[in-house]
């Protein structure tokens, strides 16, 4: 049973406090690109099939996140950092992962937020129901 270390409060990043409207975020690009870029004629049928593909892919991804909750996940990050943690949740833009019992060289952080731009990949095991 690992004893958690006390919470380290790191300084706020350059993003500031506002949740703001970030035109460089992936979400903005995905939602507004069709109206901005001139990447070819955007007709109704194309938009419909693109949206269908988008919701198909997103639903599967959300289900994979649901399957990950409460499991041990290994995160491979930049600067050769590999950490283990228990996955708790993600935000809507997949920019931050909430984790518990994050094992770091400083000790076990009871609760932590991992920034997704710092992550290269993550992995976990699952039982197949078949």
């Amino acid at each position, binding site marked *: 049973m690992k004893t958690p270390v006390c919470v380290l409060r790191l300084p706020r990043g350059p993003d500031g406090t506002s949740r703001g409207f970030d035109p460089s975020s*992936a*979400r903005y*690009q*995905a939602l507004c690109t069709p109206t901005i870029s001139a990447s070819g004629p955007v007709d109704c049928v194309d938009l419909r*099939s*693109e*949206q269908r*593909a*988008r919701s*198909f*892919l*997103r639903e*599967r*991804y959300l*289900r*994979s996140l*649901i*399957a*990950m909750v409460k499991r041990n996940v290994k995160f*491979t990050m*930049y600067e050769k950092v590999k950490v283990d943690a228990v996955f708790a949740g993600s935000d*809507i*833009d*997949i*920019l931050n992962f909430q984790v518990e019992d994050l094992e770091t060289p400083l000790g076990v952080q009871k609760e932590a937020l991992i920034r*997704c*731009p710092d*992550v*290269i*990949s*993550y*992995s*976990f*095991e*699952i*039982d*197949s*129901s*078949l």
Partner: protein
Amino acid sequence: MNEWCRKKPLEWQEYVNKEVKVNAAEQEYEGWVFTVDPVSANIVLVNLKDGGKASVMAVMGHAVEAVEVLREGDSSMADQLTSLFMPAGAQSYSREELENRKSCLRDWLEKNRIPFTEQGAQQETLCVAGVLTVNPPYGPEDCSSSNEIILSRVQHLIQSNPGCQQDQ
């Protein structure tokens, strides 16, 4: 944004159910593509193992350098991938069972004087009061509506159906 992130959802969908090799940050990842998240371009790869386990690896979209398709998956692989994450206990009903369930629900709605219409290519969807739809297999979880109050009322109603030939 790298080239992978600039792809469109239809292009990403092409990779689903294929075995691929992903190069990211000087590492290689291989596996069957379960999905590519359209918001972050993360690729979710699955490797099925013996003993009923599977290892899932996701590569973040911003880290992807190259994706190479190794193999196409067949329909049994597609089913295995889908069943890994979809809710357990998902039953499949036969046509008659679905028809019975639909009539059962229809009678219950009529009894409770709730207006509804049947819609869809095979009249399989019930549209209740013009704001809520019920899809097969017509359980409380199969209702969808943008109005929370109506959704909750109809769900309770369906749940309180004394039932026909229920296959509990």
